[in-house]
């Protein structure tokens, strides 16, 4: 138990700082966005689990040989008023901290959900009054706004993709199709759930580097995943053009968007971002500048997808991350 708690504490520390820093700097996630997404989820889950697990294992050490036995003794103390004299001050402190942290994580997750839902309901209400249905299929509406804007508002059967007048005017039909496929990919792959979970994770532990880096990475990875879906049917050029036009906020973005061949970098910064998964506040669905840049660069100079062996390694690493802390906590109890 003692060594378990030490090991889990080290694991929690490693997952809270060096690992996410390295992963966020790595180049391969843009070559295998789905694998990278799996790995980020594994890091977050394993990080939380080992943080709480380390404190539990430390706190329960005097009253049980393993976690399950320890929890049983603890339940006896709490429910049947058995003496707690076996536990020292630091044991009690660790146990309280573990309970508080668990409750904090669950409550933040729920609270974030309620906040997002409330905002989405309000957004949907206003859309019902402001937007008109579009010809581009059910679940697509057009709103009267000059900037080129596209985003989706997740909500199960009531999911809706919103396009602005400005977008319809600026894009060719094929480009518009690419935008719609991109947004629909966000909806069908349920990216809103990922955004919700990582937004809550960051909200709960804002001072941990891992939560901020994970949120930024996930925002960017879902855009790549949606781009990849659009690329199945639309050409790369169409998609890049659509992104460029939306990012620059006008139909003729070139002058401001690309450095002239002479190398002068004079440009007028203006424009809107191409929103991600209906990030109605708090979900952080909108593109960050860095995301747009990564997306376009990835399309302009495509790198080969990650080889199968490396993909398998990432998957195995993710599985290990989840299995090791879970195993350490539970297996001794099951064997004993």
């Amino acid at each position, binding site marked *: 138990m003692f060594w378990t708690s030490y090991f889990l504490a080290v694991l929690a520390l490693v997952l809270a700082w060096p690992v996410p820093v390295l992963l966020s700097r790595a180049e391969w996630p843009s070559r295998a966005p789905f694998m990278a997404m799996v790995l980020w989820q594994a890091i977050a889950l394993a990080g939380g689990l080992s943080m709480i697990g380390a404190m539990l294992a430390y706190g329960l050490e005097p009253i049980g040989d393993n976690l399950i036995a320890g929890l049983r003794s603890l339940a006896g103390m709490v429910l049947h008023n058995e003496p707690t004299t076996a536990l020292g001050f630091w044991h009690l402190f660790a146990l309280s901290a573990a309970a508080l942290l668990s409750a904090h994580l669950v409550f933040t997750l729920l609270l974030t959900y309620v906040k997002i839902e409330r905002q989405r309901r309000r957004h949907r209400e206003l859309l019902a009054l402001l937007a008109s249905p579009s010809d581009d299929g059910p679940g697509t509406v057009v709103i009267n706004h000059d900037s080129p804007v596209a985003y989706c508002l997740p909500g199960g059967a009531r999911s809706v993709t919103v396009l602005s007048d400005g977008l319809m005017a600026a894009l060719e039909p094929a480009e518009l199709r690419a935008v719609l496929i991109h947004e629909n990919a966000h909806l069908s792959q349920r990216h809103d759930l990922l955004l919700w979970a990582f937004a809550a994770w960051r909200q709960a532990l804002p001072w941990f580097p891992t939560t901020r880096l994970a949120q930024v990475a996930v925002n960017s990875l879902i855009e790549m995943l949606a781009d990849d879906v659009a690329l199945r049917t639309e050409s790369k050029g169409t998609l890049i053009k659509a992104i460029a036009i939306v990012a620059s906020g006008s139909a003729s973005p070139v002058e401001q968007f690309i450095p002239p061949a002479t190398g002068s970098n004079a440009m007028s*910064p203006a424009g809107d971002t191409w929103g991600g998964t209906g990030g109605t506040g708090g979900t952080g669905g909108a593109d960050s500048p860095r995301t747009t840049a990564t997306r376009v660069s990835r399309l302009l*100079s495509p790198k080969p997808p990650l080889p199968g062996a490396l993909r398998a390694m990432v998957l195995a690493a993710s599985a290990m991350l989840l299995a090791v802390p879970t195993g350490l906590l539970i297996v001794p109890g099951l064997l004993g």
Partner: protein
Amino acid sequence: MASLGELERAVMDLLWAGQEAATANKLRDLLAQDSAATDGIAGHQGKDLAVTTVLTVLSRLEKKGLVERERGTRPHRYQAVSSRADHTADLMHEALGSAPDREAVLARFIGSVSESEAATLRKLLGKD
């Protein structure tokens, strides 16, 4: 009878289009005119539409914070809290996030794009 949702939309359209506050009676008349003119989905709604229905719709809109009434006068006069354009701007702001560095999108992009990438972009956008 049109659904409450459609009526809410019709009422908001009238309030957004009108310059000054209107009573429920006035709104009912305008809605009746509209449906007579367009003869649309709610073709026969005009005659049947009761003022109480309009009041229900108005109180729903008030609850949503979209409509306010002047309490001094009888009957109450209703008006939109903010303009259509303001609401649209709010929605766009919400959808795109606060993005404080939105202006930096292009600046950053310029920094990260290589010369060959820039050439490809120029070709794609047909401005070479």
